[in-house]
C-alpha cells in the first residue's frame, strides 16, 4: 500500500504543514514518516487545497467520443486539480435510465483519475415532455443525486414542479439550465447594442432571470432543493439573493468564463467564444465576482464543453455552444478572485470542493485533510503561469493567449497521485 508524506504545503493558504497519506486516507504525518516505502513529496511553496469537485462537466460519452470520453475528460479533470466530476446527461443516447448512468459511473471507475458522478436527465430524452425514472437512477449503482436537462431548460412548470417533488423524496437536487426557449429562439449572443450592431440574434438576460424566479417559487412551494446552473446575469443574482433571504433552498453556480470573459469577444465572430448562456457585459462579470465573494453564488462549476474543431471552424451562427473549462477553472479563479485579494484560498476550498460535494451529496469532502478522511488533494502553485490545457480531446480553449496564474503541480485522488510534477500519471486503459 502506497504511503505519502507531503512536506511543507501551505494548507488552504495557512501555515506550512506536513500531511501523511496511507491506504487512501489521511493519517498523522509521523505515522508515515518512518515507513520505508513512503514517498516524500516536497510541497514547499505550494498550496494544498482539497480535491476539487465539479458539479457541471460534459464528458460526451456515449455518443460524442470524438470530442471527449469519460477517460479523456477524467484526465483533463485531474490536470485541472479535480478529483470528482458530475457528468451531464446530454449524451447520445441521453443518460436517462439506471443502466446508462451506471455505465457512465463504471467508465469513470475504470479510467480511475477522478470519481465520475453521473447526472441523470430530468425528462426522457431531454425532451421536456415526460419525467425520466428519477427513482431508478437514484437507487442504481450510480446513486444519482443530481438531475438536470442541462443544455435544455425544464420549461413546463408542471413538469418542473413534479421533478422537484420527486427530487425531494430522493434527497436529490434539480439543477436547472435556466433559459426560456421562447425568448431565445435562434439566439447567438447576449442581447444588447453589440448584438444589434453585429446582426446576431440577441439572448435577453430576462430569458434566464424569469425562469430562475419561477423555479425558486416552485422550489419553495414544494420544499425541494433547487440548483441554478451557470448564472450569467446581474439580474439573476438579485433574484437568488431574494430567494435565499426568504429561506428558499436554492444554490447557484457560476462558470469560470462568466467570471472573466465578456461579450466583446464575439466581435471577432469566432465561435470559440460562443457559449450557452452567452458571455455577458463587464457589469455582469463584476456582479458575478461580487456574488461569489458574498456567497449568493455558492460554487464555481466549469460547464466544461468539449467540441470537435469542425463545429468551431465555421461562421459564428453555425458554431456549437460551449468551451473547455476543467484545466483552466482554478487558474481563472486564482487570477480573478484570489490573487487580487477578493477571496481567500479557504473560500476556494469551500466553493470549488466542499460545497459542490455537499450539493451533489458526495461523501468524503466535508472536512478537508481530516485524519481518516479520503486523501483528495490538489497542490497548486498559485502565482506561477498556468499550464496549457492538454488533457481534453478537444481544443476549444477560450483563454488561448491569455496569461492565467496558477499551476496544478500534484493531484491526489483517494491517496493515489493522478498528476505529479504537472504531468499525468498514466493509468492503464481498461477495455470495457
Amino acid at each position: 500500500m502506497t504511503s505519502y508524506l507531503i512536506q511543507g504545503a501551505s494548507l488552504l493558504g495557512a501555515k506550512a504543514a506536513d500531511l501523511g497519506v496511507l491506504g487512501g486516507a489521511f493519517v498523522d504525518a509521523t505515522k508515515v514518516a518512518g515507513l520505508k516505502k513512503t514517498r516524500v513529496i516536497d510541497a514547499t511553496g505550494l498550496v494544498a487545497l482539497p480535491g476539487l469537485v465539479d458539479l457541471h462537466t460534459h464528458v460526451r460519452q456515449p455518443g460524442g467520443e470524438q470530442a471527449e470520453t469519460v477517460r479523456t475528460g477524467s484526465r483533463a479533470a485531474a490536470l485541472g486539480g479535480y478529483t470528482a466530476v458530475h457528468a451531464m446527461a446530454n449524451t447520445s443516447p441521453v443518460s436517462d435510465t439506471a443502466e446508462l448512468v451506471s455505465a457512465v459511473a463504471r467508465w469513470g471507475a475504470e479510467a480511475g483519475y477522478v470519481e465520475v458522478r453521473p447526472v441523470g436527465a430530468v425528462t426522457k430524452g431531454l425532451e421536456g415532455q415526460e419525467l425520466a425514472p428519477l427513482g431508478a437512477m437514484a437507487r442504481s449503482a450510480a446513486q444519482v443525486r443530481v438531475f438536470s436537462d442541462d443544455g435544455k431548460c425544464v420549461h413546463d412548470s408542471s413538469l418542473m414542479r413534479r421533478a422537484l417533488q420527486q427530487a425531494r423524496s430522493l434527497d436529490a437536487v434539480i439543477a436547472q439550465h435556466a433559459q426560456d426557449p421562447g425568448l431565445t429562439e435562434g439566439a447567438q449572443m447576449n442581447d444588447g447594442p453589440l448584438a444589434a450592431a453585429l446582426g446576431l440574434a440577441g439572448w435577453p438576460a430576462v430569458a434566464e432571470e424569469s425562469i430562475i424566479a419561477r423555479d425558486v417559487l416552485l422550489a419553495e412551494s414544494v420544499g425541494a432543493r433547487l440548483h441554478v446552473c451557470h448564472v450569467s446575469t446581474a439580474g439573476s443574482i438579485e433574484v437568488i439573493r431574494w430567494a435565499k433571504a426568504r429561506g428558499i433552498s436554492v444554490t447557484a453556480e457560476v462558470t469560470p468564463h462568466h467570471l472573466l470573459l465578456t461579450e466583446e469577444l464575439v466581435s471577432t465572430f469566432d465561435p470559440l467564444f460562443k457559449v450557452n448562456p452567452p458571455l455577458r457585459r463587464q457589469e455582469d462579470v463584476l456582479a458575478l465576482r461580487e456574488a461569489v465573494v458574498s456567497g449568493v453564488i455558492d460554487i464555481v462549476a466549469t460547464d466544461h464543453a468539449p467540441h470537435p474543431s469542425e463545429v468551431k471552424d465555421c461562421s459564428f451562427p453555425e458554431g456549437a455552444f460551449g468551451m473547455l473549462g476543467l484545466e483552466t477553472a482554478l487558474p481563472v479563479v486564482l487570477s480573478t478572485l484570489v490573487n487580487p485579494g477578493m477571496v481567500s484560498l479557504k473560500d476556494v476550498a469551500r466553493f470549488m470542493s466542499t460545497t459542490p460535494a455537499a450539493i451533489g451529496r458526495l461523501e468524503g469532502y466535508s472536512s478537508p485533510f481530516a485524519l481518516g478522511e479520503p486523501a483528495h488533494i490538489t497542490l497548486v502553485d498559485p502565482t506561477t503561469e498556468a499550464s496549457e490545457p492538454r488533457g481534453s480531446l478537444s481544443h476549444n480553449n477560450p483563454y488561448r493567449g491569455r496569461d492565467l496564474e496558477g499551476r496544478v503541480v500534484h493531484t491526489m485522488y483517494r491517496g493515489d497521485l493522478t498528476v505529479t510534477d504537472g504531468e499525468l500519471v498514466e493509468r492503464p486503459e481498461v477495455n470495457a
Partner: protein
Amino acid sequence: MKHLLDTTTLDREQAVRLLDTAAEFSGVANRSMPKLPTLRGVTMVNLFFEDSTRTRLSFEAAAKRLSADVMTFQVQGSSVSKGESLKDTAQTVEAMGADIIVMRHPASGAAHRLAHSGWVEASIVNAGDGTHQHPTQALLDAATLRHRLSQDSRGGDLSGLHVAIVGDIAHSRVARSNVSLLTTLGARVSVVGPAELMPTGVEDWPVEVRSDLDSVIEDAPDALMMLRIQRERIKGEHQPASGDYVRNFCLTRDRANRLPSHSLVMHPGPMNRGVEIASDVADSPRSVVLEQVRQGVAVRMAVLFDLWGGEK
C-alpha cells in the same frame, strides 16, 4: 484595403476615394468598348451561399469591365448546417485560383470569419452577411445620393443631406451599412419604423429614431430609403400585421407627393410593391432604383480596383 467587410471601418477619406473612383469608372459603361485592362490576370470568385442574382451579376459585370476572370460558386440550399463547410468551400475556390472572394452568406459575420481565420489568403469582399452588413450596397447608395444631390460632387461628401431609412431596421444589413457610411460622410440619418422592428440599443446609434413616417416627410428629407420587411429573418410570432404596416409605413403616392420636388426615393431591391412602396411611386421620376443599380456596378469596380491596388 485588403478586405471590404463592413462600412464601420471605412473613414471619410477612404469612402470619398471609393466614390471618386466609382465616378471615374461610371464613364466606362458609356463607351463603345466598356472595358479596362486594370485587373487582367486577376481572378474573382463569387461565392454565394444565399441566392442573390442581382448582387452576383453586378459584381460579375464590375469584374468583367476591369478584365478580371470571374468564377461563380453558388451553394445550393439555404440551410447553413448542411453540406460543405465555409472553410472547405473557401479553400477549394482559392485552390482554383481565387485572388478575390466575393461572398454572400446567411450567417452574420461570415465574411469577417473568413478574412480573419487564416483559412485563405485571398481578399474578401462582403456581399451581404446575415443581418450584419452589406457594404457595397451602402457605397452604391452613397454614390447615387452624391451624384444626384451634390453639385460639385468629386471629392465631396454628403454633408447637409437628410436621409430617412424606412422599414425593418432590426433585420436589415442595408440599414446597418448605410447608417455608418452615411453618417461618416456627414449626412443626417433618420431611421423610421415600428418599435418592434428597431434594433436593441438603437437610441445610441448616431441617428434620429422616428416612428411616424408622415412627420418625417414634413421634415422634407432629401431621400427616403425604403426597406422590405425581412420576414424570413424574424423569429417567433412578432411579424407586424401587414395591414398596419402598409397603413403606417408604405410610401404611397399621397405621401410621395408631400415630399419636396428634389427628394429621391431609393430601394435596395427586391421591392414588394404595395407593401413598403406603391407601384406608381416606384415607377415615378423621383425613384432612382435603376440609377442605384448602375452605380452598383461602378462602385464594385472601385472596390475591386482598390483591393487590388492595396495588394501591390
